[in-house]
């Protein structure tokens, strides 16, 4: 499992870094909201899920798509605007989907997929399946009305859903304290009747363990559960760069997060030769994905009019 977690973390990290490197060449013609620093959240949860479990995410969805098992080539091609992309060049970085692995979508409008996830969970319950839904969103997402409405309905119907608030402390450049009268997202979940716990330090192993335990309860009909996972975004909100010069946050604030980097942490737990082997495999995979993206054809003009209805 350690190896699996490490590989998953490392794949995300390296692909994101590759995107950041390529970005100045303008080959990627899409905004990118990088997951660097936050990989552990998607990885920890998804490693404890089954293929037939379903996830919903946000425009910051690269990590989630990959962690749930989405195809790296199709994702890279999507960012390059190619016909081989996971949405055939129609959705871009912010609307990744992979129906094959249960990544059921991502939205550029904050908060929207929370309700979609709840609806999917309703369907699972109705269909008598023992799969569950994991709904990922940011700390900012918890301020949208749809968050409160969705949680209430999920609790009311005792739905098989795990809510994961990726609390990176900021919505763009505004800190949680400047947006929330009582900056305690778990308290909100509990108010709507959902057991909630805060998971500190971006801890991928603890998150994995807790998800395993909680997922079993949810499958057994225990109803919704809520994780607030404390994490940190290393790069700028959108784009490939650092942004400490903007002044809304300090490098000091970032330091402990970077020191507790889960990629490094898990890497250190592996035998060096295994680690290196995984790294090599991932580097090759990333390289291949970028080549695939670059060499893939653009969508045909006629594609403009397909799949409207």
């Amino acid at each position, binding site marked *: 499992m350690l190896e699996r977690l490490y590989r998953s973390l490392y794949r995300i990290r390296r692909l994101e870094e590759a995107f950041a490197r390529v970005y100045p060449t303008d080959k990627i013609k899409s905004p990118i909201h990088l997951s660097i620093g936050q990989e552990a959240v998607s990885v920890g949860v998804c490693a404890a899920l089954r293929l037939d479990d379903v996830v919903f995410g946000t425009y910051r969805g690269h990590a989630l798509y990959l962690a749930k098992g989405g195809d790296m080539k199709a994702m890279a091609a999507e960012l390059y605007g190619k016909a081989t992309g996971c949405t*055939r060049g129609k959705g871009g970085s912010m609307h990744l989907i992979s129906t094959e692995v249960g990544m059921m*979508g991502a939205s550029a409008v904050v908060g929207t997929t929370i309700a979609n996830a709840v609806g999917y969970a309703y369907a699972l319950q109705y269909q008598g399946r023992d799969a569950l839904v994991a709904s990922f969103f940011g700390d900012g997402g918890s301020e949208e*009305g749809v968050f409160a409405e969705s949680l209430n*309905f999920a609790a*009311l119907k005792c739905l098989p859903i795990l809510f994961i608030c990726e609390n990176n402390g900021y919505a763009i450049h505004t800190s949680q304290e400047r947006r929330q009268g009582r900056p305690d997202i778990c308290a909100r979940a509990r108010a709507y009747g959902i057991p909630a716990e805060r998971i500190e330090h971006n801890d991928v192993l603890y998150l994995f363990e807790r998800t395993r335990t909680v997922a079993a309860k949810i499958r057994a009909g225990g109803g919704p559960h809520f994780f607030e996972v404390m994490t940190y975004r290393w790069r700028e909100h959108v784009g490939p760069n650092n942004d400490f010069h903007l002044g809304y946050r300090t490098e000091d604030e970032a330091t402990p997060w970077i020191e507790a980097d889960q990629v490094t942490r898990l890497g250190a737990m592996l035998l060096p030769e295994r680690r290196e082997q995984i790294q090599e495999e991932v580097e090759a995979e990333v390289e291949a994905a970028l080549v695939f993206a670059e060499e893939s054809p653009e969508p045909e003009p006629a594609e403009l009019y397909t799949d409207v209805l």
Partner: protein
Amino acid sequence: MPPSVIRASAKRPTRATPSERTLSYVDAIREATDQEMARDPSVLVFGLDVDDPKAIQGTTRGLLEKYGPSRVFGTPLSEDAMTGTAIGMALAGLRPIHVHIRMDFLMLAMNQLINVAAKSRYMYGGKVSIPLVVRSMIGKSWGQGAQHSQGLYSFFMHVPGLQVVAPTTPYDAKGCLIAAIRDDNPVLYVEHRILHFQNGPVPAHTYTVTPGRARITAVGQDVTLVGISQMQSECLKARLYLEEIGIQAEVIDPIWLSPLDIDTIVRSVEKTGRLLVVDNGWVCCGAAAEIIAQVAERLQGHCSFRMRRMGFAPVTCPTAPSLERLYYPDSRTIAAAARDLVEGTKTGWMPRERSELNSFIFKGPF
């Protein structure tokens, strides 16, 4: 074409298929829902108060008892999330029918409808589809006022990825609802509280009324009246007033506003040379604007015609009956406008009211 499917078509102009049986519009909706739920276990119906004693004017009556609370349920007052929930269900393969007792409340659901439901199929590259039906009702009279009276369907006509239907007869109420439920993409199904009280022939078997086909509800050669939603009834009454003065109006019910059957309207205008579109909403950027614009585009250069739009007065809906009367077009003001179009001048004529043609009067509380 399987025998159970009857298609509305410009070629069967006047009436719906004759049927022994008469049903109210309400019961037609109820029956369509019931039959589709019986046929397909993926069909669910939910929304505020669908399972309460009033059962949305009776349109959901008996469904809870028959299909149980996991398929028929009331919801919290949370239009935004419940719309998102409906979309999530659809992503998982269900066919939700989400009911709103007022179209005005859709303003709380716009984000999910416009930004998610309309776009999912396209922006996910065809990997998913959203077979969602959203039922909503337009209110009128008895002081429903500003926030309980709007006909905002043009918003949904504007956005690709959505379909809009506004049936006016019990026959179409049933056939369009079944078509909407079976459709793989989102359909906004527009009802009108006054139309709920209509009765008419409705076959007992299931049938669909095909998207994108208008119905000629009365044949004439002097002027084309296109009446949307409840204004269809007013147009049919206006036609009787016009007959008194020797004007033969052709009346068209578009039924589906998106996709819109402009061909049928264009052909009629080619014949009559006059087009009066009577909308059940405001005219600016409304369905009537679109119809006038499309007909003008189509006929430019080879057929000139006279045209006019009518609709809600360009104000908020007032509650006092004396003002509300002036707010809506009615059969007499429609007849007057149609005559002016035919004569090409303001005649000042207004038909004497015939009480047997009076609109159904809706009495409160609501």
